[in-house]
């Protein structure tokens, strides 16, 4: 009996330990072995729609690099995990990818809260996280590479446009966001910025909903009520993410809110959020990114056809004709990492970091993007897109050249 207890109690302890120890002993690092890249994108949960696209784009880019011979004579291998839109899981899996799978770098995260969960892990383990989404800034870690724009180069130009006469002369702002760091920080910065433009406190309203909220009935009513108050044209600054985006759009359509009445600037809206919606009543609502797939350059045509072939060849569930900005950012990130590794002749974090500074390449939107020498932010071009009737975006405005990213906004403290 004692023996049985011994076996059952300790055996289960060993099960967990063995599960973690064995793969490590089986993988002794050797030259000819593939270089592993961790892909930290959710395949289930509220972020699955967007992040699964990024995982497949990453795998496609890895295939492209391997077809050209890999890096330093070794092939690349993407290690796919599923954090299931659960923020602590991102941290747990990041630890697993670095410690157990010995990944050279991590590519992942969409929401800022997932990035903030992973941040302590990459900092304590001295690894690199390449982050492909536009975000709220206010962060500059030597273990994170920021591949997309902070608010200074994305949100503020769009707000300026909407406040201009051509954009409708917006004077009142309804900020609706999911309740976490990105919307809160964006709105804080926005309030500071509006104050410098002379917009009074009574001209804006802030409201936050939990992740995955799908009932926007009361909120859209509140928006209509807000817009009916005097003081000028009202716009909605929409920072909800994931499933909440189509839910809010559907409610706005049903309650008769059109872009000609109250324009909505959806800061996280991509083409995949418009799938399945009849976007005719949504025509005119805006979004801002560094890339829209309607941009006409030879690089973009190549990228779109590569993606189409990849989806067809691997029978993926994605739309072959849809490419969004975060996919392009992921593609740029892996390529820039590969360039840095080649220059540094090493995959170690410190060497790659040094070699990344100043790396540049041509992106599908036609800009020559460049990695900043000191902040680890990527200089990108900026575009404002307007929803069209074909579940996509028409390009309303694009910047002439890449813009300098400003990590820490001067407007945050002014609110």
């Amino acid at each position, binding site marked *: 009996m*004692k023996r049985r207890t011994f076996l059952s109690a300790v055996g289960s302890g060993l099960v967990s330990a063995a599960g973690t120890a064995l793969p490590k002993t089986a993988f002794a690092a050797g030259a000819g072995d593939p270089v592993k890249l961790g892909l930290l994108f959710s395949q289930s949960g509220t972020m699955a729609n967007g992040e699964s696209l990024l995982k497949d784009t990453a795998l496609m880019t890895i295939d492209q690099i391997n077809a050209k011979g890999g890096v330093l004579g070794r092939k690349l291998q993407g290690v796919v995990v599923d954090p299931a839109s659960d923020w602590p899981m991102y941290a747990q899996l990041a630890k697993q990818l670095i410690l157990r799978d010995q990944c050279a770098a991590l590519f992942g995260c969409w929401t800022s809260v997932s990035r903030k969960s992973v941040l302590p892990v990459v900092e304590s383990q001295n690894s690199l996280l390449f982050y492909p989404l536009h975000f709220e800034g206010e962060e500059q870690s030597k273990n994170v590479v920021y591949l997309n724009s902070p608010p200074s180069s994305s949100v503020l130009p769009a707000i300026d446009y909407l406040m201009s006469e051509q954009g409708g002369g917006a004077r009142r702002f309804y900020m609706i966001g999911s309740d*976490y760091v990105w919307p809160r920080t964006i709105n804080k910065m926005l309030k500071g910025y509006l104050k410098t433009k002379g917009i009074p406190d009574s001209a804006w309203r802030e409201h936050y909903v939990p992740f995955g909220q799908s009932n926007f009935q009361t909120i859209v009513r509140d928006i209509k009520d807000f817009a009916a108050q005097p003081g000028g044209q009202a716009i909605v600054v929409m920072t909800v993410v994931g499933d909440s985006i189509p839910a809010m759009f559907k409610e706005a359509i049903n309650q008769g809110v059109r872009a000609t009445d109250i324009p909505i600037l959806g800061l996280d809206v991509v083409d995949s959020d418009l799938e399945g919606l009849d976007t005719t009543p949504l025509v005119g609502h805006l979004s801002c990114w560094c890339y829209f797939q309607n941009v006409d350059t030879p690089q973009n045509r190549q990228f779109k056809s590569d993606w189409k072939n990849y989806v067809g060849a691997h029978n993926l569930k994605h739309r072959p004709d849809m490419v969004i900005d975060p996919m392009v950012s992921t593609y740029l990130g892996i390529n820039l990492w590969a360039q840095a590794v080649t220059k540094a002749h090493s995959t170690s974090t410190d060497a790659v970091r040094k070699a990344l500074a100043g790396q540049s390449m041509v992106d599908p939107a036609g800009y020559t993007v460049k990695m900043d020498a000191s902040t680890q932010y990527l200089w990108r071009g900026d575009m404002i897109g307007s929803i069209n009737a074909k579940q996509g975006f028409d390009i309303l405005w694009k910047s002439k050249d890449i813009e300098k990213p400003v990590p820490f906004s001067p407007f945050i403290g002014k*609110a």
Partner: protein
Amino acid sequence: MSAFATKWMGQSVEVGIVPLLVLLALYLPLAYFVIPESNALHLSLFGINLIGQIMCFALLALALDLVWGYAGILSLGHGIFFGIGGYMMAIYLLNGAYADTHVLPDFLQYMGASDFPPAWKMLSRLDVTIIATVVVTVLAAGAFGFVTFRSRINGVYLSIITQALTYALMLLLFINDVGLGGNNGMTGFTSLAGHRLADTSTQIGLAVCSCLLLVAAYIGVRFLSRSSFGRALIAVRDDEARMRFLGYRTHTLKLFAWCLSAVLAAFAGMLYVPQVGIVNPTIVSPQLSVEIAVWVAIGGRGTLIGAIVGAIVVNGLKFWLTAQLPALWPFILAGVTLVIVVYSSNGLWGALKAAGLENNGGSQ
């Protein structure tokens, strides 16, 4: 003779878990520092960390077994107390991080605060934090238990109410305005009682502490269960009305067991958070609270060891299988739960014990 032998062996088996766990606690630092990496018995930091987390879950299961196995109260909301311990430890750790780095946590910054709330600053020492956690937990558990047990609510109604309460707490914690980090939760811990959390020795120390706390809790609860208090609890579980008619204040008995269980769960939370490095509202999700009951059910409720065994087996399997076969894990868990719940109401441990009794030819 055989009856005596079975009883003696049964006792020794149940006490035997204690030296086993102590051995495990001693093995952990050896496995990392002494045993070389190429040896199969070596444990990586990741593995030790997992074992520490599993020990916390085992303590949590033990706490639930106390109220469910012995008092018959199926609480599907023990996550609340786990979360109270976790969040209070997190506040203490944030105080420590602020002392180290002089940078406010993100969620305070974007909510516009320029300093910690005054209530938080009280939790700047570990002993104060522990005492405060015990006080808050006893108050919360006591308030709930007092009202509920006096109203004679039990059975499924109580279970549903505890689910609803943990769900409500989770929803509340998601709101950033409540000031506890919202969806982000709290992270960015640097040091615990002077030890840097990034050091391997601290992590191993935490895992060892979890084992030892489990041992201490087990000894204490086992002693309690063998005492007259324990007998009274079992009687309340089996027939509360009769106990009441016999003159026992059943609601006081239940309340005491409930508060003790809550404090144990809170301690489990306090040790869990520094090992995981983050706390967020999913710690009080209804899902986790039901899972605790599943661990106890699979292990065998009412036996204390069963709860520990159940928690270790289920979580060990979970960590192993979600890495290898993530698509299959929910089916395996569902299947195991169904089989155990439907066919063997005594769980794994009960089945083992029954098989052992048969082997020895003893009839009790």
